[in-house]
């Protein structure tokens, strides 16, 4: 599984990396702008990410904005969101606005931090990634 972890906090990034390690090594980005760039390169190389774990509140570009841009890049290449990368929002923002906005912009799942290993693995199963 090719995964991208987008997270500005080092501890949270490391936790996700370790939980996902058994499925392969993950790439990391520390803000939305880096994530968009990483996804663009992956799409241009025809090696898209299977999974993107995307935090919301990050400097430079937040996760909601990155989500929109990632789905737009996929669409430009004729990839429907249902066939694109599986995007799990991993955030401590649990308010209805953020949840609704993320699903409106075609995230696939929403996990509220702190991330529980079992919750993450269940979502990966539901998304047919493992």
């Amino acid at each position: 599984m090719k995964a991208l972890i987008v997270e500005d906090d080092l501890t949270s990034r490391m936790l996700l990396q370790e939980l996902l390690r058994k499925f392969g090594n993950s790439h990391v980005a520390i803000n939305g702008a880096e994530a968009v760039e990483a996804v663009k390169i992956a799409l241009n190389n025809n090696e898209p990410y299977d999974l993107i774990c995307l935090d919301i509140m990050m400097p430079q570009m937040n996760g909601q904005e990155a989500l929109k841009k990632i789905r737009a890049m996929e669409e430009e290449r004729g990839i429907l969101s249902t066939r694109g990368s599986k995007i799990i929002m991993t955030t401590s923002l649990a308010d209805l606005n953020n949840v609704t906005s993320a699903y409106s912009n075609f995230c696939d799942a929403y996990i509220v931090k702190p991330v529980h290993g079992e919750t993450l693995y269940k979502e990966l199963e539901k998304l047919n990634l493992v």
Partner: protein
Amino acid sequence: MSENESLNQFKGLAVWDDKGMMERMLGDSDLAKLIIEQFLIDAPTQIDALSELIEKGDLAMIKQRVHAVKGASANVGGEAFRKVACAVEELAQNQDLEQIKILYPLLLKNFKDLQERLNNYLKNQN
């Protein structure tokens, strides 16, 4: 809210929810140790940066910084610290620097308590 009211709402919270942390990490004590070690390296820098931002009164950056350190503390089960960090984040959102300054000593105390508990845990592991 008076200073006492402001501080009283945070009484009785667990400094460290070790059980919750281990559950989230699926009982993997090596993973827990790794995450704790990383937290103990990274969080003090974040706290120092936060102190400077509070001194400067930069509310936008306070919000961002405290949000990050709140997430990090949640990973290690630092409940008492996380709750105060959460309140500071909300106060930054509401542009209330005065209340942030009231809560900040408690945030620091909770951080030091958490540091101590985590350091003791690591010592006992070695």
